């Protein structure tokens, strides 16, 4: 039971940070299906940085993880500029732009991972071996029955994510910038009339979205996958988008949705172990989050209120 909470949380938090990224972009009025590509590309840059640094530090050092997270955020942010350029300046269809960015990310990272591996080690492997981050247990609270599992064997990145989510919640709902960002997604003409800069706000929002997704991606690479390979494109980015849709584009409710997703996934795995099924059956349980998403979407999609201007190209001359 405690394992359920431990594993569930370590899956839910990276998902959450990506969902927060998606919320930022959509709240500013840019439909963002590119989360999948952002997280993969960000994780690629982070993993590359980690691999380069790992040659100079001792094996047990945890420094590469933090460097990787920093670079993943940078890489995701820089790569997000492509989506911003296409959908804000070039006025491309935002759904198409998102899909393009995803496809390009998969192609680029796959190609350059093997290219980088050939250059570094001489073998054309499509993987960066990263290992798994250390885990820490919080002494007192972890002893509490039931929810104690939430505090056992935590990855350090979970704390970083929690801090980041609180910060970005504050930024969106309690600051002038956040107010403008939300206005930008509801009624960009009003923001423009009030003296805001729609193009700049959307650019910043998309870049934030890329940076947060990159962090989410590298956290998956350092926890579930233990390496960076093209299998990072497992669709978790899309899962984050689905979480955002249930969470009705609001950060606090998205937190809850992500926790449910995490528990569903961990629960499936625990069930599989408890029933002593062969490894083939894990596929069926891995499917659970996606099935759950479909079912929840059926029940909740009707009541949704996406940001009004989301997906629309902003044209200053239009009323």
């Amino acid at each position, binding site marked *: 039971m405690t394992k359920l909470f431990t594993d569930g949380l370590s899956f839910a938090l990276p998902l959450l940070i990506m969902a927060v990224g998606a919320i930022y972009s959509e709240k500013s009025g840019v439909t963002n*299906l590119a989360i999948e590509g952002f997280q993969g590309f960000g994780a690629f840059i982070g993993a590359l940085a980690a691999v380069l640094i790992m040659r100079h530090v001792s094996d047990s050092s945890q420094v590469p993880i933090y460097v990787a997270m920093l670079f993943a955020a940078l890489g995701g942010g820089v790569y997000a500029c*492509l989506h911003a350029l*296409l959908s804000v*300046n*070039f*006025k*491309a*269809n935002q*759904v*198409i*732009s998102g*899909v*393009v960015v*995803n*496809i*390009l990310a*998969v*192609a*680029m990272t*796959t*190609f350059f991972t*093997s*290219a980088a591996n*050939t250059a570094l080690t001489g073998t*054309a492997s499509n993987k960066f071996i990263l290992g798994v981050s250390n885990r820490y247990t919080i002494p007192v609270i972890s002893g509490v029955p039931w929810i104690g599992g939430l505090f056992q064997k935590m990855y350090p990145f979970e704390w970083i994510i929690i801090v980041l989510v609180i910060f970005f919640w504050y930024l969106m709902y309690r600051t002038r910038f956040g107010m403008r960002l939300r206005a930008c997604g509801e009624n960009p003409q009003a923001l423009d009339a009030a003296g805001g800069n729609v193009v700049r706000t959307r650019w910043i929002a998309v870049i934030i979205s890329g940076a947060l997704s990159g962090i989410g991606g590298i956290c998956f690479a350092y926890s579930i996958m233990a390496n960076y390979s093209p299998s990072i494109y497992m*669709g978790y980015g*899309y899962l984050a*988008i*689905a979480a955002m*849709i249930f969470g009705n584009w609001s950060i606090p409710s998205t937190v809850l949705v992500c926790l449910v997703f995490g528990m569903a996934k961990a629960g499936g795995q625990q069930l599989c172990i408890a029933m002593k099924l062969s490894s*083939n*059956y894990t*596929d*069926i349980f*891995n*499917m659970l989050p*996606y*099935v759950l*998403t*479909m079912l929840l*979407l*059926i029940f909740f*999609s*009707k009541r*949704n209120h996406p940001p009004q201007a989301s997906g629309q190209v902003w044209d200053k001359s239009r009323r």
Partner: protein
Amino acid sequence: MNEKKNRGLAGLLSSDRWSDFTVSVLAILLMLITSSIILLLMGRNPLVAFRSFLQGCGILPKANYGGGSGMLSDFFDYLNILSPMLLAALSFIVAFKTGLFNIGISGQMLLSGFLATIMVGYIKELSPWLAKPLVLLIGAAAGGLCGALIGFLKYRFNIHEVVSTIMVNYIISFTTGFFINTRYVDMLTRSSRICTPAARLTWTKVPIGGVSCNIPLGIVIAIVCALLVKFIFDRTVFGFELKAVGTSRSCARYVGVNVRKSIILSMAFSGVFAGLAGVTYYLGYTNTMVPKTLPGMGYDSIAVALLGNSSPIGAIFASAIVTIFQSGANYMSSSVGVAKEIASLITGVLLLFAACGEFMKELGRRKIQKEEDKRIQAIQAAHLKEVSEKGGADR
């Protein structure tokens, strides 16, 4: 001289008649330039690489051939990948014209390929005349139903089709993977057992002119489907209604189009083509299925559709171009020594430029507008000068 040339390009980009064509050609040119730069950075000669792409798919002759194979057999292999690619692109186009994004082509391909394989492909005694139509029928039905489901969810529950198709993709991928792994796996290759030659949509090892070729049945189907899609959209009320829904949903509703029916039928049609693409891919080109792997073709076809300006005839040419890179990648990789993943990188870059099409057109328009403004200003200035001189003389 240079200015004149620029105006020519801008004119072509903004003219109604030529702009679609010019934008596609420009996207291809930009793609060639970008991939040349990547190849140059890796220290390879891009011209040699592009030549070996063409050699790999049987358009240019290779230096030497293995026993029993020749340029013609390479070309038929190229056609064999081309047919599912074209069908998948048609699938995207049908949905796209209705204003829907079928990102689930991969999943629909996988589902139809899987169902056709287990229902027909493993039956030993079956006449090819019965098996092949049955495979096509099952493929079309499976894809169509899956598409219709997405359309239904979209209309009834307001679920964005992009999110639902992606979820369905993963569900199909895991489910078929589970069944292949537990029941239909070939222990040696770790993918599904190959299906019988009777069910396969490719005639294998047909001797033509001294070389043995694998002749794809799918290419005929694909071209017929492209013409069919063109006919539906250009000549029928149904096609017009789909386009109307794609242009403005509320407007279509006001003029009396049944939007619900159009959305569901459009997704179903799209699914039918994806299903046909699936059977021509899995029971024609590969003849086996790797568990838990979605075909990348489902996404590449989006590039094809955009490059072909979402017209079925354009898609024929666009798929012919994109497939050159997919099909020739293996030969290019072995002869030039660049990882064959560069093929998908090239497709991605092409997709990127194709998506900028609208912007390119606008640039062309802006340029012409600017020149027009300059011309008018010059005339006005000359006129003003004339008037003021005249005025001075009068005084």
